[in-house]
């Protein structure tokens, strides 16, 4: 009992504004403070010898930043880019607590939602085989359910930094 109360309390601390976006028919939410900006899809330069979920690099006003294809990362079916496909530029903290700027490619950006503490529920557990670690919780609003992403986990520096070193 007390454990679940604590969990609920944790959930309450997640209350705040979230940028929601669509990815393969699902709705996801990103903590608004992590988002730097949203840009339209531009020409992405592929970088060899990187995992497939790294689409490549782009020029963000003179700065070169990597772009992650979230569909590939989440192992969804690969779909052609549309007009609505865009890049959300996020600031992620990697393991060394360095802030890294990255872009993530999503199908469509929806809106900014104000989610209150009582609207958030812990992520459901599907048993041991399903990893829900990168989901902070589920936000329920009148119309829909939004998965709140722990973006630091999704783009964990560990996984990405491993990339280049394997020759």
């Amino acid at each position, binding site marked *: 009992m007390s454990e679940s109360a604590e969990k609920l309390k944790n959930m309450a601390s997640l209350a705040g504004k979230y940028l929601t976006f669509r990815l393969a028919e699902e709705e996801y939410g990103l903590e608004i403070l992590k988002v730097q900006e949203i840009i339209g899809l531009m020409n992405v330069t592929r970088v060899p010898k990187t995992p497939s979920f*790294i689409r490549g690099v782009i020029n963000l006003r*003179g700065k*070169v930043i990597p772009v992650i294809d979230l569909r590939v990362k989440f192992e969804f079916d690969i779909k052609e880019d549309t007009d609505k496909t865009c890049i959300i530029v996020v600031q992620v903290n990697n393991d060394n607590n360095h802030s*890294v700027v990255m872009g993530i490619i999503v199908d469509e950006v929806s809106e900014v939602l104000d989610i209150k503490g009582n609207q958030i529920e812990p992520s459901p557990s599907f048993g041991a085989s399903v990893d829900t670690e990168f989901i902070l919780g589920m936000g329920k609003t009148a119309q829909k359910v939004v998965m709140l992403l722990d973006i630091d986990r999704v783009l964990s520096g560990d996984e990405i930094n491993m990339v280049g070193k394997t020759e």
Partner: protein
Amino acid sequence: MNNNDEVALDLIEQITSAILIANLADPQECIEIYKLLEELEKVCTEPDCCKMTRNCLEMLEKHILNEGTDETINEMMFVLSGEKRLLVKKINCAGQGENDRVIEKKTDMEIHDSGSGLPDELVFDLNDEIVKNFIARQFGVLEELEEHILLLEKGGTVDPLKRIFHTLKGESGMVQLNDISVLCHCVEDYIEEGKRSIDDLLYVKDWLYRHFASLRDNQVHEENVQEVIKKLKKTATNISEPQQNKYEKSIDNNRLSSDISLLSDFITEAMEHLQNADNLLLELENNPMDDELLNSLFRVFHTIKGIAGFLSLEGIQTLSHITEELLDKTRKKRNPLQHDEIESVFCSIDTLKLEIKQLQTGIENGTTYTVHEKTQKLISYMECLTKKSDKNRPERIGEILQNSGKVNEKQICSALKKQVEHPEKKLGEIFVENGLVSEKDIDEVLGKQGKSAPKVAVRETIKVDTEKLDKLVDMIGELVIAEAMVTGDKEVVERASTRALRNMRQLDKITRQLQEVSLSMRLVSLKSTFQKMARLVRDLSKKSGKNIEFVTCGEDTELDKSVIENIGDPLVHMIRNSTDHGIEPDDERKKAGKTQRGRIELRAFQTGGSICIEIEDNGRGLDKDAIRAKAISLGLMEETDNLSDKEIHSLIFQPGFSTAIKVTDVSGRGVGMDVVQKNIQNLRGSIDIKTEKGKGTVFSIYLPLTMAIMDGMVVMADRERYIIPTSAIVESMKFKKEEITSVTNKGEMVDFRDNLIPLVYLCEILERKIDNKIDDDKIIMVIEDMDRRCGLVIDSIIGQQQTVIKRLGEGIGSISGISGGAIMSDGNVSLIIDVGGILRNTKQYKT
């Protein structure tokens, strides 16, 4: 008798300060001053002084009886300062022993009084750079002051005010603006007494503003400082004794802990000054008769002494004072500095640097600052040196010529004899007539002998945070790209009118200029680096007993700041090598029939897209056979290997490689050149050696103009653009299928100028799909790094381009074969090929 004079001097000082501070409208105070004057009259033995004192007394009487004008007091001050000067002169003449006491007086910071405590020539001219700078700075200070005064009203503290006035007092005293320093002193007292009238303080600030403004415009400020002081006195009563130094000590004891910002300012400033002093002294050594140089040097020490004085940094103050003393003596005697004197001034500069560094670490670690023991020793040594006075004269033209090896003693004698016959002729002319030396040489020598002070206009600079600067440069980079995107847009260009196109071209031009300026902002001249080298050569030649002439050329050449920071070390190593190994000892030079004086030349110039720094010596040159033998013994090469001269010479860059028989404390371990090559490679530069045995060596270092910009060749492979550094490209060629030799399991080779080199497909390396391998319209680009070569197969070449190197974001680590990304004119990112990485991975193909 002398004692009397000193008492008189003290009295005069008391009187002058009393006059400045006293409320002269109050008869009681005037009588006090009157009494002091009477005492002075009694003490004074010098008839002239008596007369002057008498005059003063009469003037004061007039003032008390309200008969005098406002001018009376000023006149009185003038007379008193004249009297003081007279006394100082008298004491100065009184003898060596007495001399020291006057010097002591001088350090007591009594320059605040009326400027007469110092010899006349020391009084700063208002046109002096230092004074100008000081005045210019004060407007900002006054603004700050006003802000703090206003804050006071809202409950702020008086501490910042105290600090400002104290600084101002010290600095204005230093540049002989005595009115200001006296006023500041009064204000300090005023604050100390707990008075807080905002109006009064603002009045003082306004007065100071007007005063500085009139000083700046070279006008006379009408308002008398007395007025302000009087006004202050109305609120403040009972001003404590005006003895400057006592006051100073009482509040300065804990300054180290309390005023870090002031100290750190001092540290940076003093370091700059000392750097400057180094250069001045070096120049002075070559140009001993240049008064201007000596004066500048003098000012450096004077400034440091002044600031260190009011910061209570005793060691620094005493040392700079004694150095100043030494220089002053030289200046008065109009003799060039002696060799040991120069040496000791150098020593003093170094020690001061050491002291300041210590002070800095002291501040950083929160420890207290103590005077270094070395400093104490140096101070006493220099004291001895100052007392010792020996005569010297400027070098004669003949001596200079003889030293430089142009003529010998006999020739001078005969020329001198000739001069006796024709007394109207100059010695130099006779030399030229005899064909011994050219006219140019004589001009050069005359330049050395006389005063050839090249005056350099001081450019105004402003210190900017590098972070801000980098941001600006970044943003301008973005602007250039954005501009290119707009003007390069097909749609825009097709629909635009002629006028719009013209405007666009104008925009293009301006952005390009902007980019050039932004890049040049990070550029720093090589001057300070070269000057450091000059000092190094000097020290090393003294140490090794070799006579070396050091010439620099092109020191105004500019390089990126980061490059300058990293080029210092390699240059030091190379110069050390040149002096230690390159230049032979004197007797060896004589045997080889060379001039006695060795010569090292440091040159910098721009060639194409890179900067070249050359170090040339006329020493013994590299010994090819010795290097070869050493390399064989170290197993770096086989005896049968047939290496080119260039390859043999480059062996000296191998770590631990040295042909020196004996390891000296300068060089010989074979570490230096290794460092040189590493650093230069890190800077994406290269190094080249030209040498001739017995004649000398030239090392040429080629460096890119900036670290961030690279000259690259844009190529296509699988519909993607890549950039290959131009410096790595040997040659590009078309080829036919038949020329490719396939080696089983070893890949493909191509015949390039009778050498088989491995073929590498760029697409393959970058894991792009490979379409139909080789066909006739593909291109092989031969790339090279560290003597390894390979042929890179690409689709086509687009062209050469200057590119800005960017890292591939932090999320992506290092990838072999890719060194970074570059933003192209269309805003897309292209990858830069790491040639070294590719060649390392293909080493298994190596024949």
